[in-house]
């Protein structure tokens, strides 16, 4: 199998596993980490295409994704800590008030 093709398949697999983790797991912190895994899968495809076409756009976009992930974590972690303090749990099924 071609190198880029293998890496794109791996990126797709990482994205799928991260998405499944968000749907399947019930610890909010674990769901956050699965989101990071999805971002990593996207980064892998960006890097492999940037390397294949020998352009710099993909690499710059990866750097921007790094920064966005850092900002996301900086906001999500305080929110999660407040949730854990209010309900004494990180179980997402304890936060189901919006369910009809």
């Amino acid at each position, binding site marked *: 199998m071609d190198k880029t093709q293998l*890496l794109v398949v791996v990126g797709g697999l990482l994205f799928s596993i991260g998405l499944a983790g968000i749907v399947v797991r019930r610890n909010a912190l674990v769901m956050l980490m699965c989101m990071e895994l999805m971002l990593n899968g996207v980064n892998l495809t960006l*890097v492999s295409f940037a390397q294949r076409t020998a352009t710099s756009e993909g690499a710059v976009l990866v750097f921007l994704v790094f920064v966005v992930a850092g900002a996301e974590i900086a906001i999500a972690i305080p929110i999660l800590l407040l949730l854990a303090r209010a309900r004494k749990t990180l179980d997402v099924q304890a936060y189901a008030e919006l369910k009809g």
Partner: protein
Amino acid sequence: MIETALLYFFAAASVGSAVAMLLARHPMRVALALVTAMLSLAGIYALLGMHAIAVFQVLIYVGAVMVFMVYVIMLIDTRDRAFARFGKFALPGGIGLVALAFVFGYALAGDEAPAARSRDFGVQAFSEAFLNEYWLYFELVSVLLVAAVVAAIAVVKTAGTRRG
């Protein structure tokens, strides 16, 4: 030859630790599996010649984000009932994972890719491209970071006033 073997090794390690993330019970084990996946991805980036990206992956993701995450895991109660592994969406989620992986595999298999051109992409090439062509995005990202810091402080302050 050795590079191909290493590439396959790192790819298998990243996918394997992603599966371990899906199955591990304790959040600390999930975090360590995610660190393993990120380090394997950094190895792949270095093998591809994207040295700047590999360094940033280790510094930002593993060094900053995941260390932060591990601190938070240490802060929370370890006897939380959320450590039960799966929620009630386990079956549809698993079916969705299989379907999504099948669609990706079907879409990607058998595509004839054009011939590879490879070029080393170190810190110098990266910073020249970044600060010459993409300086606007650099500035926008700094605005985003400031907004994130202000938002984090606002979240914590709101909680303090409501409690007090």
